[in-house]
């Protein structure tokens, strides 16, 4: 009787028991560090003999980033706002308010409204940050630089990766070799990529210095120019990550059923119509997911700016992750954690918004 009761209990709970090791591992290795770093973000920590001392400072580490001595570093320098900046900020504000009004009028739900309010506030903050720094001739901080890497870098990678994948989805001579060769950059460690590009871009003593001199750029110091340095980092990042977009989208393009395109051909559709009406809608969910993964990764960029420029000139190429790493390296753990959490919030809000408002919307529309 007793044995059958145990067996019955085991039968009922076996699923949970099998899941338990994985859950425990996740709790220990993922959730615990997340919670620990959250606690550290509200404290000042000093390592001492036999352990460490913790002094809770409330929101001071965050306050320092947004309103204190590190504001210029994270957000940028705010002196005065230009007319263009003001106009852009006002237009963005009106556009976002209009977007919320449309939502409330069309289909209101409490959860949906709260989610959109979070997106609204984040977009509003970033729009005004853009207006007050870049559009007003002021310096932007590590957050602006990171967003540049994310949007410009991922945009370039998406366009080139997609175009190459589409081209390779047509079987012609040499595509197999091309696929293998093209996949190699993704397998190189980012530190290696950083050093390769740093050497190649060295106009005075690098292996290509002769080439640079030949094209008249022998005296051009890319690392001394903020925009040139940022662009070089985006180029290196793109070189490494275009293969990822390429390989994922190639699989998606190749999975488009030939029956559909052949039927469209019979109906007289031209190449553009076939692409926009059949191929692209089929590929879109994969493309959106690929971009989501890339955006999440791009927010964490640290290796390339660290190796290529060490965040310089000034703080022009420093990403938020690199800022956090520099703070951690000097054992300013509280600040390092606070910066990491700011990045986490920005990444989560942007990615969840993108997923809900773009990917899910398309899926709902398709279904």
């Amino acid at each position, binding site marked *: 009787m007793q044995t059958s009761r145990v067996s019955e209990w085991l039968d009922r709970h076996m699923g949970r028991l099998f899941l338990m090791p994985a859950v425990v591992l996740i709790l220990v290795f993922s959730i615990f560090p997340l919670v620990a770093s959250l606690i550290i973000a509200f404290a000042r920590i000093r390592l001492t003999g036999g*352990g460490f001392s913790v002094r809770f400072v409330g929101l001071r580490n965050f306050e320092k980033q947004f309103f204190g001595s590190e504001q210029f570093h994270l957000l940028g320098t705010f002196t005065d706002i230009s007319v263009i900046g003001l106009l852009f900020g006002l237009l963005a504000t009106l556009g976002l308010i209009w977007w919320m009004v449309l939502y409330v009028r069309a289909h209101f739900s409490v959860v949906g409204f709260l989610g959109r309010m979070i997106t609204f506030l984040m977009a509003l903050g970033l729009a005004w940050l853009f207006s007050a720094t870049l559009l007003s001739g002021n310096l932007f901080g590590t957050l602006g630089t990171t967003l540049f890497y994310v949007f410009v870098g991922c945009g370039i990678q998406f366009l080139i990766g997609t175009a190459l994948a589409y081209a390779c989805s047509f079987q012609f001579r040499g595509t197999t070799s091309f696929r293998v060769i093209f996949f190699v950059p993704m397998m190189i460690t980012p530190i290696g990529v950083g050093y390769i590009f740093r050497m190649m871009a060295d106009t005075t003593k690098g292996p290509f210095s002769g080439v640079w001199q030949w094209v008249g750029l022998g005296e051009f110091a890319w690392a*001394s120019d903020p925009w040139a340095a940022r662009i070089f980092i985006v180029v290196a990042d793109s070189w490494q990550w275009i293969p990822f977009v390429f390989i994922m989208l190639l699989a998606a393009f190749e999975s488009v059923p030939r029956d559909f395109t052949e039927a469209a051909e019979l109906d007289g559709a031209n190449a553009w119509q076939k692409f926009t009406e059949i191929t692209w809608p089929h590929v879109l969910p994969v493309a959106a997911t690929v971009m989501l993964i890339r955006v999440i990764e791009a927010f964490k960029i640290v290796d390339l700016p660290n190796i290529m420029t060490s965040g310089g000139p*000034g703080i022009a190429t420093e990403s938020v992750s690199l800022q956090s790493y520099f703070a951690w390296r*000097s054992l300013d753990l509280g600040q390092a954690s606070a910066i990491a959490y700011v990045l986490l919030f920005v990444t989560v809000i942007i990615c969840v918004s993108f997923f809900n408002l773009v990917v899910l919307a398309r899926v709902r529309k398709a279904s």
Partner: protein
Amino acid sequence: MLSKNLKRMATTAVGAVMALTPAAILADGHYDGVVVNIMTRPGPVIAGRMVDRGKEFKAMTGAEIRVAEVPFAELFQKILTDWATGTRSIDVGVFASGWGVEYVSAGLVENLDPYIAKDSKIDLDDIAPFFRDFNQKVQGSTYFITLDGDFQMLYYRTDVLEEAGLQPPKTWEEYLDVASKVHGMDMNGDGEADYGSCIFKKRNAQSFFAVQSMAASRVQAMGTNEGIYFHPDSMKPKINNEAWIKAFEIYKATGEYGPPDELNHDIGDSRALAIGGRCALMIDWGDIGPLSIEEGSMINDKVGAVIMPGSKEVLDAATGKLVPCDSNRCPYAIDGINFAPFAAFGGWTGAISKASDAKVKQAAYDFLSYMNQAEQSNVDVTMGWTGYNPYRNSQLDSTAAWEEAGFSKAAAENYLGAIMESLNHPNMASDIRIPGAAQYTSVVLDREVARYLADEISVEQAVANIEEAWEEITEDFGRDEQAQIYALSLGITN
């Protein structure tokens, strides 16, 4: 052919016997089974010679010396984390002496006074006063063993300056003047225009040392215990003033006579240009001398060294203004020029974890002492690749070892003369040696210097930002505790 091979074999055998003989004679195996784990920066610089000496030490005593290498940027926190958390995977940390105060204040480092008392071979009196009395000590006790003497000097191309009819600069204004006059000359015969000045300026590297070298002679005139960072009584930063502003401006101005991408040059890049014969003036630690005689160098016997340039004006701490030097304000000035060679980084020193076993600690001390003793270190400092620079007077007494290493007599005398002058200077400026040292200089100072060099901010903004950030760090660590440790690091005991 046969005789040639026999000769080669015989030479090898004799060499092997000679290499093993001292070890065989001294070997007693009293540390058999003892393992000493050392952590330091990646080799061959610093770590490489430690590995070599470790093999000798094992042959003599039986103790195994294991050297773990981690990137320079992570060394400080890796050692601190290991020692503070009691991991005990590191018995000896070899790091910048300036970092050591933080380890000592956390109670993690073994006091070496009792070990030194029993050590008849270390000969502390031979170590230059700055390294013996400031660099190795905290609060009057010795916690570190010096392995490398670090301070910056000015190097110049003797042939280039001679051709231009110029003398080595004595002040930073003269430095800029000389650099401007020789900038664009072909200095290595490759037909290309070369540079008047090469000084590393990369962010998150070592540029913050260079600007301190330029500030020291304007900020400190009354001797080492005056300090260049804070007012010792209040811990108020001594940075938002004309002396530091001038140093920032000079640092930036040197870039006009340097390579176009100097903002992205670390010390290795500047050295490569110097050794390639492309720079007329450069500032560096002691490494340029030995590197100049290595294979492939274009400046063998063409490089001279002098004490770091000084200033005819010094800071009036009360007003923050620069005032002309006189005998009261600049007691150590020569011809009205105040010199303050900056002990940038302070040199690589070894410290022993308090938590290690007693026998391991003794073996670790014996190994550090072995590295430091004149018999070993006087050879090591003559080899450029080791990264070790002189810190003992006996390393400078005779040019014989240097000539044997490849220097000409004149070059050796010039090089050692400059070192001697700097090393024993009563106004040598100490690197920052208080808890949070890395935050004060390698984070905040470094970042603001980089922003100023990149034209992101004005020099006035840069020093104001540093002042604000230093105040925050001081508050975080505790003003009174910091003031006390800062005073002690400068040798102020009352």
